[in-house]
């Protein structure tokens, strides 16, 4: 077991396409890091560079204290779980798990013991002699995990391991992965495009966009103070409302209505409001012209317009709604971003809000 360190890591494909640029991540031993971002953001490329399945164009990747840039995947002491399981179709479950160990020259006894242990952990005992095609999707995914576990590697690499499973199975496998990782204490790097999966699994999130790191932080930290409009829109569901507002005379003004103080120079800002931070009120607040309502059971999401700008509100009520509802904004839950760059503007008072939660 070991930490992982990525220093200035970049990847340029032929034709000068930059897939990944200047990634700096220090991962402590035993940490669960989730790389999250939309498709094409370079997260899989980054993972594959760590695995050794892609060459590293720039920078340095260390596993423990070894620079692994030029090592064969088999020599990097990692194990990878693939999206479509990538099991060897002609081998039994047992052989699938044992194959890597056999090639490393482990003794028969050690192999048997580790396979038995992994099978017990993953409840694969009854299937050890079956071929992968005789297993369900969830079982196959467990075999893939077993194959990773038996190696007892320095790091687990997960490449969207749950995206081929149905929604229900995904949730239960998510829990299983987290439990296993805690128990084994193995450093893990996990790639997903699903922000919910990222939030629930990660010790720390790495949000990637266009091959660059947008933000690194604990899930709640990223949720509460997103570093940019991109992160703000990507993390959290339903997505954060991002509205064009102005700072006028020390106040944030949205559609001619002042909604909070801001010690900022006058000019346009992007205002971020989480749908779940908004409340319906009888009087005052912003006037929201309703467009449609999504009923989710535990809560409903109201979609509408404030002035000309779309805004959504998540609320738990079931009261009938009129065409125009009043929405109150909690001043301490405002997020402000520079309109031009999308960077977060830290405000006095915003930091004070966090411990209160």
């Amino acid at each position: 077991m070991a930490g992982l360190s990525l220093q200035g890591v970049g990847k340029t494909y032929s034709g000068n396409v930059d897939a990944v640029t200047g990634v700096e991540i220090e991962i402590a031993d035993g940490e669960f890091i989730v790389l999250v971002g939309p498709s094409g953001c370079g997260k899989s490329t980054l993972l594959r560079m760590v695995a050794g399945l892609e060459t590293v164009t720039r920078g340095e990747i260390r596993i423990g204290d070894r620079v692994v840039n030029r090592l064969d995947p088999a020599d990097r002491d990692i194990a990878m779980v693939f999206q479509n399981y990538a099991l060897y179709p002609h081998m039994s479950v047992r052989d699938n798990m044992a194959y890597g160990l056999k090639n490393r020259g482990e003794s028969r006894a050690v192999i048997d013991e580790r396979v038995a242990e992994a099978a017990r952990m993953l409840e694969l005992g009854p299937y050890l002699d079956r071929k992968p095609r005789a297993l369900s999707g969830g079982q196959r995914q467990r075999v893939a995990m077993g194959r990773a576990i038996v190696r007892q590697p320095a790091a687990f690499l997960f490449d969207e391991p749950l995206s081929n499973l149905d929604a229900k199975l995904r949730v239960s496998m998510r829990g299983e992965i987290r439990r296993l990782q805690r128990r084994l204490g193995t450093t893990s790097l996990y790639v997903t495009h699903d922000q919910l999966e990222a939030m629930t699994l990660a010790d720390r999130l790495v949000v990637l966009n266009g091959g660059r790191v947008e933000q690194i932080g604990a899930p709640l930290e990223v949720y509460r103070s997103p570093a940019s409009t991109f992160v703000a829109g990507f993390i959290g569901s339903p997505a954060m409302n991002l509205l064009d507002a102005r700072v006028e005379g020390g106040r944030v003004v949205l559609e001619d209505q002042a909604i909070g103080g801001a010690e900022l120079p006058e000019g346009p800002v992007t205002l971020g409001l989480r749908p779940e931070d908004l409340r319906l009120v009888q009087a005052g607040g912003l006037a929201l012209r309703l467009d449609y309502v999504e009923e989710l059971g535990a809560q409903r999401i109201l979609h509408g317009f404030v002035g000309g700008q779309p805004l959504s509100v998540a609320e738990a009520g079931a009261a009938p709604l009129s065409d125009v509802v009043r929405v109150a904004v909690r001043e301490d839950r405002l997020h402000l971003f520079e309109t031009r760059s999308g960077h977060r503007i830290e405000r006095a008072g915003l930091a004070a809000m966090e411990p209160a939660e």
Partner: protein
Amino acid sequence: MTRGSGPRARAPRCNQNSGTQVTDTPMTTLETERTLLARLRAWYSAEDANPTKRVQFDRPLTPWLFVLPQLAVVAIFFYWPSVQAVTSSFYIEDPFGFGSTFVGMENYGDAVTSSQYRDTALFTAFFCVVVTALSLGLGLLLAVKADKVIRGTETYKTLLISVYAIAPPVAGLMGMMFFDMHMGPIKDLFALFGHDLRVGIDYWDTAIALITISVWKQIPYNFIFFLSGLQSVPVPVREAALIDARSGWRRFRDVILPLLAPTAFFLLIINITYTMFDTFPIIDVIVKDKPANNPMTLVYKVYLDGFKGNDIGGSSAQSVILMVVVAALTVLQFRFLERRVHYG
């Protein structure tokens, strides 16, 4: 899906037709006409009482029409000649076609006891094993190498495959030029090693030429299949193997090769058939009109005895034996080899 909607889609049109008839046809005629029409239509479109039994085709004759050309080809070019061959193998035919005498199994006895036949059979077996092994092995080797090529893949593939477009007799002729006793470059090559290559005169020299040309001709075919087989091995499976095994040879032996087994099994059968039958034109070009005792396969001997030696009965008996042997061989392969083949 379409088969369900077909008849239903026609139904409204039928109503329209009868609707127009109402204007100028008496009611009774209309009724009979309609039932007759309905019955005809039902027969025509096979709308029988049990709709669950209705399969792909709307009309009962259509499937037969589709199979007919294939059936005709099989009947005319396989069953009929086979029956002819089996019948004439029991007769001794007059060389000038004046009649034939029934001799029972005598032709078979003659063939089996003839030392010449035994030599040819032995050579055929040898030829079959060597050509199949070499063309499969080299085809696989080239495919594995081509699979790794990233730049210029298409050119490389096309170059390797293009040989397959050459007709066997042409391949034979080209080979003949390469092996020519007076101007062939391969003769010069052998001369470098101190061997005087005399194709068409020396038995084993001719065998070398036959094998080389036959293998050369068959490699592209095996190459195409192996390459497509290799490319259908899922990339993540290869990558998983990359993490599991450092040695490329091990990855190939343990992961790639087993996944290629269905392709290899198919090619094995095709290649054996090729060496047994399809090498005929190559052999013909190389040994035709050569005076010496040259190697040949059983098929060529069938042709030689039957058409050159005018021994129709004897050659028919040989061809029946050959047919039985190849059939038995194929059955054996399916029984004993296919069990070890993993289909995805």
